[in-house]
């Protein structure tokens, strides 16, 4: 006990945020996989590609295809960098206009 009294100026350790152990979200922000409209890809084809790449049912694939067609783009999924890159690559293999954009949220 005396030991502690002999050290009246004990400095409490400073808490430094450990960026190494931060959540994965802050290390790897989300990326939106977006399909953009173009005047040439067939609507049936785009629906098919969404079904194959994401394993979606036809109804969901069609909903996103119509979003692309009517609104100019559709956000398909939000993923980490590698997964988003994987999806973009697969969509581009089918010659769809797909990109990944950092999610601002």
């Amino acid at each position, binding site marked *: 006990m005396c030991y502690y009294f002999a050290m009246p100026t004990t400095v409490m350790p400073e808490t430094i945020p450990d960026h190494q152990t931060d959540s994965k979200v802050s290390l790897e922000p989300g990326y939106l996989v977006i399909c953009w409209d173009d005047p040439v890809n067939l609507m049936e084809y785009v629906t098919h590609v969404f079904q194959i790449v994401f394993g979606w049912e036809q109804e969901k694939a069609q909903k996103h295809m119509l979003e692309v067609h009517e609104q100019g783009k559709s956000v398909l999924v939000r993923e980490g960098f590698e997964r988003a890159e994987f999806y973009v690559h697969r969509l581009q293999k089918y010659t769809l206009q797909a990109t990944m*954009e950092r999610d601002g949220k």
Partner: protein
Amino acid sequence: MKLIQADQENLQFEMAHPEKFLLQQVLQCYPLVPATYHRLSKQKSDSNHEENQRLLEEALQAQRQEHRQQIEALLNDAKRFEVCAAGYEVRFSRVEMEWLLQVINDVRIGSWIAAGSPSPKAEPNPPPTKQTMMMEFAAYFEMCFLRALDGGKSSEHD
């Protein structure tokens, strides 16, 4: 071109002589889409943007080479097209159908780019060119394949 049989693995088509000729013409055009057509991202703020873009183009280039080899193998397979009363019978696996769709759509999009990326609304009756005709041929086979795949249970292949 008519689907005559489909199961979990394969689809069998019947096609006339001109259809076989046109399919070969479309496949031989591949690849047409320029290597720089695709962008990984519209944002350029990422410090690794250039490197990631380079890697994407390398991956797409490797895929083109693979597809080119698959096309050569398909076109040189003497047993692939069997003569029948209507012309030919040809069987494709569902895996082959997926890469064929990628190839055919590449020819369609590449022809559109080569034609100057015309808007479908800009001119009602543009004069036919080699590119616009190739687009039509590719669209024909694309729709035949999509309808055939839609008729059976499709699974993920790539």
